[in-house]
């Protein structure tokens, strides 16, 4: 149980980053996404604001509102912490690594892989979700916010990879 509910997760759940939707600045690129987890009715609305153009485009702010379990809410909070101020390309990479972590069935990245250290550095607080990947029913919870972010990147055309859209409900 403690492996699943790491203190980092409970802390983010109690004091989430970015909660409360901010008005989007119409002069800058921005977008909103609403995602639901149909199995439990959890939902999130996320607003993402960008600055800059092309490869220089960065995420200036992420705000959100929604309801859900500790895993989904904490995961969105960690997402905000990880992506604000980062370039779109870097954010898509982090999102990709986080999805990889969710596929490790609770084991985390292999210790004998030399890429592991850099992946763990990249994920920072999101490493706390390693235990979540052991519970198939909860992976969707952890990915709810990341799906909203991906949807926003795709719908605004901000995505570095225009094909990184598609599955909306993970």
């Amino acid at each position, binding site marked *: *149980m403690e492996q*699943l*509910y790491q203190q980092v997760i*409970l802390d983010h759940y109690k004091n989430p980053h970015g909660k409360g939707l901010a008005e989007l600045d119409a002069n800058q690129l921005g977008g909103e996404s609403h995602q639901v987890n149909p*199995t*439990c*009715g*959890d*939902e999130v609305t996320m607003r993402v604001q960008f600055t800059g153009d092309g490869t220089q485009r960065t995420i200036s702010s992420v705000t959100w509102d929604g*309801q*859900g*379990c*500790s*895993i*989904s809410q904490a995961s969105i909070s960690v997402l905000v912490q990880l992506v604000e101020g980062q370039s779109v390309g870097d954010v898509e990479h982090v999102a990709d690594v986080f999805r990889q972590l969710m596929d490790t069935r609770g084991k985390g990245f292999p210790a004998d892989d030399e890429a592991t250290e850099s992946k763990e550095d990249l994920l920072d607080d999101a490493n706390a979700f390693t235990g979540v990947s052991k*519970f198939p029913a*909860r992976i969707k*919870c952890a990915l709810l916010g990341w799906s909203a972010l991906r949807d926003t990147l795709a719908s605004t055309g901000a995505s570095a990879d225009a094909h990184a859209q598609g599955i909306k409900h993970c």
Partner: protein
Amino acid sequence: MNSTAPHTLSANELAAIRADFPILSRTVRDGKPLVYLDSGATSQKPDPVLDAEQDFYLQRNAAVHRGAHHLAEEATDAFEEARHHVARFVGAQPHDIVWTSGATTALNIIAYGMQNATLGRGGDAAKRFALAPGDEIVVTEMEHHANLVPWQELAHRTGATLRWISVDDSGRLRTEELDTVVTQRTKVLAFTHASNVTGAITDVAAFVRRAKEVGALTVLDACQSVPHLPVNLTELGVDFAVFSGHKMLGPTGVGVLYGRTELLEALPPVLLGGSMVEVVTMTDTTFMSPPQRFEAGTQPVAQAVAFGAAAQYLGEIGMDAVFAHERDLTERLLRIADLPGINVIGPLDAVDRLAVVSFTVDGVHAHDVGQVLDDYGVAVRVGHHCAQPLHRRFGIASTTRASASVYTTEQDIDTFVESLQQVQTFFQVN
């Protein structure tokens, strides 16, 4: 209802029943004894049911209602005998029992059959099922999506209007609304016998009485009631009813559509193909009589046979005893309503109520409640239980649900209650 106290199950009887369910003696999550409180989603299966299904495959497997060989005869006999068992179990005639792949399919057969009638199929006899703008379909606010969405869609397709009976703060239907919501315009009154969320048992007699006054057809979702209390569909006087095998100790993949004889004879079929036709030419087809008319294609024969065994199994225990036992469990489950920070969504007394208790925990999301309970070996359901409108009515997105069955013990409930307090400790909300 059985408000007096009939014979309940003795400790020995309950132990003997539990011994029939191999899965109940397994452990989960690193050696914890399984406490299965998710029977409202699907029940566990006793040996006689599993044996019936396996025995069919081992000894009698053949296509039914065709073939002149020995095995085909025995297979057909087993298939039709199961229909008798299930019919007797719910006080119906065997020819009024249609096998379906489940209750959801059964409800869709009624709704799509009515659409076919609206399109003019089925001739004059089917006109009673036709809908037009101005007609109304009435459901309730506490329906499972399976008894709501098919009617919504039927209304959209035919121009009929969907209306509903609302739910009061205690989680019971406002039966008094029947007088205003159900009118001469009502063509269908579709309602659940017992809520899969609040456990509240519907006053079926009042619904049937009102429907008869205005000439509306009644459709009863009996999925939650048939496994847990004595149900006699003939005495209830409903026009159609549906229930599933897997919630009443039977296998998945098989359910029942019940209809009064004259209605099944008039309802146009929905699924078309082999085994349900008489004469087929390149342009036209005549259909067999019910129930075969609604049983196109290869049926889940082994599952139907096992479903029959499940009905026999429950019948031998006696549904009065099952209901009395589960009523005791209901009272025990409802003790959680007295715990601080626990909010039960549904009636707080055990009268006219099933052992299905949904609740929220202040400060803890249902998913997290279920996860911690699971760590103690307690299996519950979390989410909206396919009843989003009912949850919305209470201003919540999800609940945790504990639901019992004939094999559930008081010890199961006590473990659940103790574990629930651990949930609050873990999330530091107590």
